């Protein structure tokens, strides 16, 4: 029975390689989309220009403090800051061409200084933001408060504005009649000490930095090995391989339905062949093609974007093979779902898109609600993603791939079993 089995597998492979659309959908399209996704999500480790938040800074004060704030914002690695005017900034945020706009009002430096030492009313910095980017707004607000605190405190302790405000404040306290001696004395001491510090800092520049955060952070991306940077293309290629692998599964199922529609199934069934030969050969050819899709896409990612199998190669191949078998089973199941190729295609594309989305191929799963994250364990795509990511950029060993492999094989058996049980062997009319 090997001659018909081999011939049927060979036929499927041949049909795949003469079909330009199939080649495009399995290789060119996933490579193009994964390359794009990989680039916009950080690429292969060059973080200098990746993912910067575009911020417009409007300085209506033009004081030393406001200039210092804008300079500090511009120096932030995560921000791309450009000067603007109030009207232009609002229009740009509204159109979505800028994510956040920071508007420093007139007389901000003076009012902030006064509020720094006394009970004066605090000035307001306007923050205009695109509501579809609220995460970025929170990030810019955090950076802004740190920069404002440093700029204002520096100017208050060492700058001319600070000295003027200090002198005025000291005179106000000394002349104050209503203030109790228990408060007046310590406050005079504090302001005189600050004045002495200002005078000393003229001779000792190291003391003129103002208040600063009492800590710094040492950030380290935990990847496969030390000094190996995270490669955004690894996640993107894993996602697209899973998505287009499942699309290949749809084509397998639709192909079977088309063979039935075109009378080819009659010819196959008329031959003295077992059902296992007929369906098994289709499953094997589908698995070979899905495996090939994974390997070719990752080979491209390896040579063009430096995506390496940093972990277990055996694990990577095992996950690829288990995913390919699951895809084959999925394809066979598709062939039993509908009666016509046209009706089945629409439904199965919808199912694949849902499965892929919930598998974390498009957006990271941590953005899902907790209950939905728990639900993803029933998505084969999630296990394929886990397995591919574990063995590529996470650099984990074979043991990390075993669970995804086992789960994918279970899905393959489930889909294949359902397909055999539901398959319409009879040829009507």
């Amino acid at each position, binding site marked *: 029975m090997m*001659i*018909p089995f*081999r*011939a*049927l597998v*060979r*036929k499927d492979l*041949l*049909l795949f390689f*003469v*079909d330009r659309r199939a080649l495009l959908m399995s290789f060119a399209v996933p490579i193009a989309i994964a390359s794009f996704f990989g680039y916009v999500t950080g690429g292969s480790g060059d973080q200098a220009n990746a993912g910067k938040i575009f911020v417009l800074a409007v300085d209506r004060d033009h004081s030393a403090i406001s200039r210092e704030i804008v300079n500090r914002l511009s120096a932030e690695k995560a921000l791309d800051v450009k000067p603007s005017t109030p009207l232009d900034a609002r229009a740009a945020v509204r159109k979505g061409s800028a994510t956040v706009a920071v508007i420093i009002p007139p007389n901000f430096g003076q009012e902030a200084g006064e509020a720094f030492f006394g009970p004066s009313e605090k000035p307001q910095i306007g923050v205009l933001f695109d509501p579809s980017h609220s995460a970025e707004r929170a990030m810019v607000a955090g950076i802004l408060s740190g920069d404002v605190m440093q700029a204002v405190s520096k100017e208050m302790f060492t700058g001319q504005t600070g000295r003027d405000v200090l002198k005025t404040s000291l005179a106000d306290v000394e002349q104050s009649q209503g203030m109790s001696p228990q408060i007046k004395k310590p406050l005079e001491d504090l302001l005189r000490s600050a004045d002495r510090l200002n005078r000393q800092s003229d001779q000792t520049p190291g003391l003129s930095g103002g208040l600063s955060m009492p800590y710094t952070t040492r950030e380290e991306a935990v990847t496969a090995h030390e000094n190996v940077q995270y490669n955004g293309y690894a996640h993107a290629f894993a996602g697209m391989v899973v998505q287009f692998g499942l699309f290949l599964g749809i084509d397998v199922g639709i192909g079977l339905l088309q063979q039935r529609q*075109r*009378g*080819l199934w*009659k*010819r*196959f*069934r*008329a*031959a*003295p*062949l*077992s*059902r296992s030969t007929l369906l098994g050969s289709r499953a094997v050819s589908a698995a070979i093609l899905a495996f090939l899709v994974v390997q070719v896409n990752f080979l491209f990612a390896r040579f063009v974007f430096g995506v390496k199998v940093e972990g277990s190669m055996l694990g990577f191949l095992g996950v690829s093979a288990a995913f390919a078998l699951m895809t084959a089973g999925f394809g066979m199941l598709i062939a039993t779902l509908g009666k016509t190729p046209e009706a089945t295609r629409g439904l199965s594309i919808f199912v694949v898109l849902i499965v892929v989305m919930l598998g974390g191929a498009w957006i990271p799963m941590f953005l899902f609600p907790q209950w939905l994250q728990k639900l993803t364990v029933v998505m084969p795509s999630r296990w394929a993603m886990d397995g591919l990511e574990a063995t590529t950029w996470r650099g984990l060993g074979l043991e990390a791939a075993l669970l995804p492999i086992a789960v994918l094989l279970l899905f393959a058996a489930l889909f294949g079993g359902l397909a055999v049980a539901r398959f319409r062997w*009879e*040829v*009507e*009319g």
Partner: protein
Amino acid sequence: MLEVDALKKSYGNLLAVNGVSLRAGVGEIVGLLGPNGAGKTTTVSMIAGLTTPDSGTVRIEGRPLSGDRDPIKRRIGLVPQDLALFDELTAHANLQLFAALYNLDGAAAKRAIGDTLELVGLADRAQERVKNYSGGMKRRLNLAAALLHDPQILLLDEPTVGVDPQSRNAIFDNLEVLKSRGKTLVYTTHYMEEAERLCDRVVIIDHGQVVANDTLQGLYRLLPVTNLLAVEFDSGQDGIDLNEIQAVPGVRFAKFEAGTLRVGLQNLATETPRVLEWLVERGHLYRNVASERADLESVFLTLTGRSLRDS
């Protein structure tokens, strides 16, 4: 030898085939004639083992068909009504696959492919993709695909649908060659001309039931007349008494249709001269005489009360 006995098949409430029986011997072409939806394809599907009958038996050379892998299936070749070919592959690649389904590969497959392509006249186009073939060429390749394993019984399900007359004649020539080689052919069609040209026996099916099963001559004998004489006169029908003509020996009926006298005869050769003499003797000089032979359309009409073409 193919023996089919009392096959029945229902799909839900629809009784598609209701007790069909037929025999087809060595070197015989048996036609299954009936309108669309009569149950011809379902019958062929049951004979080929594609569909399990609700009841009845199919015997190939005395043995019943059992199971998907029954080696007796090698004795059957099926030509489906659809063009069951892979358009994107070459004719040779298609035949290579279909040969492999019957365990043929290597030299045996090469020889079989060469022989069948030669038979259907496509040997010089073997390396072309099927999508570039004309409809007629595809039909011939569809036939070739069923012949690779040299089956004794060939089931042809409307194998000439949608082809030009030239290609149809080429297919008929191929089938006559196969008949001369002693093959048993079961040919389903709703074209009576095809059944008349090719078939030794014709099984007429309507609503899933066999309404007649005989040779062409046997079927014609079911008709009240086998021939019709059409006579036209310069002077019209004046003075011709239809009752008198019907009294002439051998005449079954006489009537006027659009100014033409139509006379039903059982034997054209012996009875035509008598009718013409009778007319001349009475001064009814005719301008034109033509004869029409009875056909399967008339048989179907007689048996079912409906025209085959209108069904």
